[in-house]
């Protein structure tokens, strides 16, 4: 599976403006939450590389803590890329080898429970978030996620794992546009050239697992975003109706992952439904 196909790509973004707005967003959220900075988990992939670069531009390297958690699936090339990027951004990288934690955890379950492959795969990202929140709490920082719009819309993330963060600065940016931002931000070429991978298993690639290229996925998502019908999307993108249907199915099946826990409405005003207050406490009230 490759990103290059006959599919028409989605319209490009204004990288300078998008980059500036995301930086403003990070700064505002940090200021209004009255915290000192952000913790970001680095995977060696393009998304977290873009986010950490924007965070440094926004609030400065002394307020950004990158964390890398090595495990048996980690690639030496990814580790090298992370070191190169941190050096370039003047960041002090915190590293752990968490393989023994994963093994201990897995062993403790293995003795008593049967479970699916998905359940095993989700252990790592959930352990990773525990490390990130430990450092965030310790330093009074926010946990800054690296999920992009394409992944969020099809649920290609672990609920309460990499999805369990305080802010998602690139959560409204398609993967196609992440590549444009990476070029604009002059990220090392290796981040841009490597095949996107969640790194949950050895040799895994996102596009193989999703079953289509990001170009195809983003074309369908963009069409749905701007209210095009399936027929219009098929005509405009040359993507098969079956693939479009598959994307819509993934959207429906993952809606629960994009929402907070579903609260059952019983009262006059209900949390997360119709009891609405500003995100930050007013200074005077």
């Amino acid at each position, binding site marked *: 599976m490759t990103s290059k196909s006959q599919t028409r790509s989605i319209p490009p973004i204004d990288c300078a403006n998008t980059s500036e707005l995301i930086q403003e967003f990070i700064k505002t959220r940090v200021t209004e939450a009255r915290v000192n900075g952000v913790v970001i988990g680095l995977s060696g992939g393009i998304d977290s590389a873009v986010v950490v670069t924007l965070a440094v531009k926004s609030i400065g390297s002394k307020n950004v803590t990158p964390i890398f958690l090595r495990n048996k699936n980690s690639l030496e090339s990814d580790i090298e890329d992370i070191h190169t990027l941190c050096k370039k951004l003047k960041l002090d990288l915190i590293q752990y080898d968490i393989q023994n934690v994963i093994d201990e955890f897995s062993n403790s379950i293995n003795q008593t429970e049967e479970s699916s492959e998905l359940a095993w795969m989700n252990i790592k990202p959930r352990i990773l978030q525990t490390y990130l929140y430990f450092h965030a709490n310790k330093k009074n920082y926010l946990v800054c996620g690296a999920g992009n719009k394409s992944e969020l819309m099809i649920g290609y993330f672990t609920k309460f794992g990499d999805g369990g963060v305080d802010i998602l600065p690139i959560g409204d940016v398609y993967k196609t546009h992440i590549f444009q931002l990476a070029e604009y931000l002059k990220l090392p070429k290796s981040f841009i050239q490597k095949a996107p991978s969640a790194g949950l298993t050895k040799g895994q690639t996102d596009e193989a697992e999703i079953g289509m290229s990001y170009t195809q996925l983003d074309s369908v998502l963009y069409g749905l975003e701007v209210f095009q019908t399936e027929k219009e999307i098929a005509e405009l993108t040359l993507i098969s109706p079956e693939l479009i249907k598959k994307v819509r199915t993934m959207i429906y099946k993952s809606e629960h992952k994009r929402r907070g826990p579903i609260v059952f409405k019983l009262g006059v005003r209900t949390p997360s439904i119709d009891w609405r*207050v*500003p*995100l930050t406490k*007013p*200074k*005077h*009230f």
Partner: protein
Amino acid sequence: MVNRLKFRVALAQIHSHQADPTSNLKIIAETCEKIVRDKDLDTIVVFPELSVTGYLMHDDVYQLAEPIPSGPLCQELIQISQKNNCYLIAGLPESSVPGLLYNTAAMFGPQGFIGKSRKIFLPNHSVFNERRYFRTSPTINIIDTPMGKIGMQICYDIFSPEITRAHALLGAHTSICISASPGVRRHYFETFIPARAMENTINFVYVNQSGIQDDLIFWGGSEVRTATGKQVAKLEYNKPDFGICTLSTESAQSAKNFVPTLKDLPSWIFKKLEESYYDI
């Protein structure tokens, strides 16, 4: 002797604090204080939509809305106008009879309360929730001021060309639109602002919120167009900014001589519009 043929417009593109009128009134007062007086011209300082309370106050609106002009926030705005000898337009939630709220633009001056206009088009699509809280204004009005007749409208009102047209037909030389517009709408506004000025031969002032509230960024970009569409002020995008320009109360007249759109407007079009509205 003040020259009433011209007046100054100060564009106060602020970043309002959400549900925090105390902080916002401080910003409004400081903005008015820093304006250097012009003894020959009156100055209207224009603040954005819901600038007194912040745009995204959510359910706190029920606590923050007040009668205009008798409410305490309005009394503070009157004091700011009097202290700084300026006119001031700001947006705030208005409570009328109990349970009826409006999204309102109010004008104050050294003599006290001047007038108010309520928002007609309340967006309830995309990220907007205004009809959840506010009632739509049942009327269009203009305000009699010492600088002549001025129309006020609020944000999404600009999407309806009839509002500015009504301001012009009612005799306003200037239409002032206060706004809280998030970034994705920018190209619509930047198309409508010169269009509303030119199609109605009326000065047009647009003042937007700036900065982030919750998960929205307001794009700023406030600007002023004369009745011929000439841009005479333009502020920064996305961040707080301030600018001042001078407008003529007579430029609308000379523009109308050149492009007499209002003279050429036949009344049957309005009747047809009304008929077609009910036919839909």
